[in-house]
């Protein structure tokens, strides 16, 4: 059964249709990859699903519930977690508190529980410097923080928008394991990445967006061979 | 789609209103239009230099009005000692206040730019206090104003008799707007100012001397407001707290126009001036003019935010 489903989702900015007629499903325990050229509408789709932008048309269902017009915090309560492509950690909080925000408000834990949750999640993600101020953290740690905060709200669906960009191969490997670990907890995951090795190794299924619509769908091996995808997105590797 | 269409209709209505209201007023209460434009011109012209440094480069200057007040005193004493008419004194005022602005910038603002943004509030609040008290100690709180016979010149058109001089504020607002727009749009320095205001680090990385740009814009703003103080003095008295209401008025206008929108400041000034003049034109309702000022302000700000959210 689908955890998340969109029907003909659309989002415009003035005359520009950033997401157009987007219909897809996310199954339980699935890791779905969304790829597509820059400006294809991937981030916009995540924003529309997580509620930061109201869709201009279409519907979104989380399980049975229609969340098309719910405000973002309600969607978070209902089980949508996400990270941000351009990370903006909460700089006046420590790393631990950053994660606690998700636990406190996403799931309405008590402070004490939230603190514990934050510790567990940090341990799970290998985030060590948990009581440091965010300004001392490296990009890698900040990305872990992003995931941790989303995870702390105990989502049913987790959107990861280019969290692995900028990691080297060692770090990527660790991140892949972490994401799989999250999936194993029963979270359906949707990853947006431009690093094909990640998509290849991680995803069960891939959707390719271009110009706001799906141009291809299927396992990575299949879509990566699709000439349209190669032309629009992958290019010829020399 | 429907949204798009209603927006259009909405804009059309606005356009009609902005043309229709003046025409109706012109026929019904010509004074309102004339005096509203004059009064609004004063608001607008004094807000423009603040819009330049607040809206463009993002420095909040709570001492704005105090610089204007000092400019007015400067012009007054130029009149006493050098026999200069305040309008002529605008020229030395520009020079003197550019210098004053530069010194102020180097000694204070420059250091505060690295600090949290709100510190500028405190810093310029302290500066405003120093300015007011300095004037108070130097010249007491007794108002000063030179006599200038041209400021009450008027023309009579049939039964309609109105003052002509105060259009100088209207004209100054428009001229200053045009000059500033040209400066910001057409000159490299102006564009650099915009860039600095949006992202100082980015500006450095394209080769802009950020510090010099700040210095320049701050001095220009102070020079302008100093000279406008001289112009203010032609029709108003100067006293130590003469400037502070204009700081707040200017803030209001800039917020109403939207940050960085200089034409909006001028049109907003005119609009508020006319609205105030309209309310005061009903005998006994002058006390509500402030409410109208604030209500229009709030309505515009709210309306814009609403449009931003739906668009």
């Amino acid at each position, binding site marked *: 059964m689908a955890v998340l489903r969109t029907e003909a989702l659309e989002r415009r900015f003035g005359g520009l249709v950033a997401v157009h007629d987007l219909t897809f499903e996310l199954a339980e325990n699935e890791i779905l990859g969304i790829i597509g050229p820059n400006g294809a509408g991937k981030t916009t789709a995540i924003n529309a699903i997580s509620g930061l932008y109201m869709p201009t048309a279409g519907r979104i269902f989380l399980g049975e519930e229609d969340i098309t017009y719910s405000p973002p915090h309600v969607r978070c309560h209902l089980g949508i977690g996400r990270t941000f492509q351009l990370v*903006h950690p909460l700089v006046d909080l420590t790393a631990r508190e950053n994660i606690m*925000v998700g636990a*406190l*408000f*996403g799931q309405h834990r008590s402070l004490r529980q939230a603190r514990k949750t934050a510790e567990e999640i940090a341990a799970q993600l290998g985030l060590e410097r948990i009581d440091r101020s965010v300004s001392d953290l490296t990009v890698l740690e900040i990305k872990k923080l992003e995931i941790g905060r989303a995870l702390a709200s105990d989502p049913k669906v987790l959107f990861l928008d280019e969290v692995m960009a900028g990691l080297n191969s060692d770090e990527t490997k660790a991140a892949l394991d972490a994401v799989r670990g999250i999936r194993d907890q029963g979270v359906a995951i949707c990853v947006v990445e431009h690093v094909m090795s990640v998509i290849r190794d991680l995803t069960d299924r891939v959707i390719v967006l271009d110009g706001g619509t799906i141009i291809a769908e299927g396992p990575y091996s299949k879509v990566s061979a699709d000439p349209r995808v190669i032309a629009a997105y992958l290019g010829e590797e020399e | 789609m429907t949204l798009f269409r209603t927006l259009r209709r909405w804009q059309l209505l606005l356009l009609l209103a902005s043309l229709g209201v003046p025409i109706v007023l012109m026929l019904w209460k010509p004074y309102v239009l004339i005096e509203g434009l004059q009064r609004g011109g004063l608001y607008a012209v004094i807000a423009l230099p603040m819009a330049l440094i607040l809206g463009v480069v993002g420095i909040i200057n709570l001492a704005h009005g105090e610089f204007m007040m000092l400019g007015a005193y400067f012009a007054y004493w130029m009149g006493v000692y050098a026999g200069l008419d305040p309008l002529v004194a605008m020229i030395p005022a520009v020079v003197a206040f550019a210098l004053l602005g530069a010194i102020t910038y180097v000694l204070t603002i420059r250091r505060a730019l*690295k600090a949290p943004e709100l510190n500028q509030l405190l810093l310029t609040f302290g500066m405003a206090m120093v300015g007011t008290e300095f004037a108070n100690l130097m010249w007491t709180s007794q108002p000063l104003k030179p006599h200038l016979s041209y400021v009450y010149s008027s023309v009579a058109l049939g039964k309609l008799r109105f003052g002509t001089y105060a259009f100088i504020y209207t004209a100054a607002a428009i001229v200053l707007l045009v000059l500033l727009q040209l400066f910001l749009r057409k000159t490299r320095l102006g564009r650099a100012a915009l860039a600095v205001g949006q992202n100082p680090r980015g500006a450095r990385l394209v080769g802009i001397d950020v510090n010099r740009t700040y210095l320049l814009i701050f001095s220009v703003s102070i020079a302008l407001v100093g000279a406008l103080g001289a112009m203010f003095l032609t029709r108003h008295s100067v006293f130590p707290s003469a400037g502070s209401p204009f700081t*707040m008025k200017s803030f209001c206008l800039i917020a109403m126009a939207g940050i960085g929108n200089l034409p909006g400041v001028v049109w907003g000034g005119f609009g508020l001036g006319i609205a105030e003049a309209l309310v005061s034109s009903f005998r006994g309702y002058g006390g509500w003019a*402030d409410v109208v000022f604030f209500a229009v302000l709030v309505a515009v700000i*709210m309306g814009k935010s609403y449009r931003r959210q739906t668009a």
Partner: protein
Amino acid sequence: MRMTRYLPYVLGAALAALFPLFSGAYLEQVAVGMLIYLTLALSWDMLLRSGQLGFGTAGFFGLGSYAAILLFLNVGVHPFVSIAFGGVVAGVVALLVGLAVLRLRGMYFAITTLALAGIFAVVLRNFPGLTGGSEGRMLPNCIYAGNTTKIYWLVLALAVFTIVISEVFERTRIRLALTSIRNDERVAKSSGVNVFKYLVFVFAVTSAIQGLAGGTYAHVFGFVSPEGSFSANFLLLPLAMALLGGVHSTWGPVVGGLVLGALSEYLKLQIPYGHLLVYGAIIVVVTLFLPQGLMGTVRAWWRRSHVTRGAQ
């Protein structure tokens, strides 16, 4: 363990409560003024912790003053009840207004709250029958008949109440909510923070505190008037105190309020003519040399010495 943690606070509060024992009426009266401003400074800061720059402090202060005095004069309730009423009115008005204006951010919010304060004052002035118009209304007898010690305790209670609320804000989830909103609203929303609810909540609470302060002030000094009760002083001075002390904390505005309050009184006695010049100059210099505010500087220094010791 718990006991010792709160010991400094209890001691501080006791010391403040016993202040009248070793001060005279004069210092009490000065303290009354300082504590009122301190309350305003702290409440202003509490809203600022959500990233919202409020310029409505004087407006809600004045609103609370009027509500308290008018209820007291027309209905004849106990002064405490009327002060509470002042707080409630300010809070409720803030709640209603907040539902609309809290969609605004940054300078737009600041100016709109400033405009609202202006509207309150003008509207009250234009209903002379009820409000006494421009002249305002006067109390035949002030609270405690001017007994400064009792007044001091009353105002101290107000300040302590505000400090406690502020600490509640600091020690519960509220701090994380407000900080996340201030740092990145999108992140806050997507992490489940009901941003609007929290903003309305703090706006109403802080405005209610300002209303309480206004009601108290009006009862202590025995009058309300548009010029007196809505004076820009009740906006600008608290703002300066909070900023000078250091924002986003309880103790910054408290220290700022005490320091600036004491400084202004001291300078006034030392330099009868022109003390405001020196006062302003000190504000400028402190801003330049202690950009983090007094408490921020102390905290940074503390952290530095702490970290050094930790490293050794």
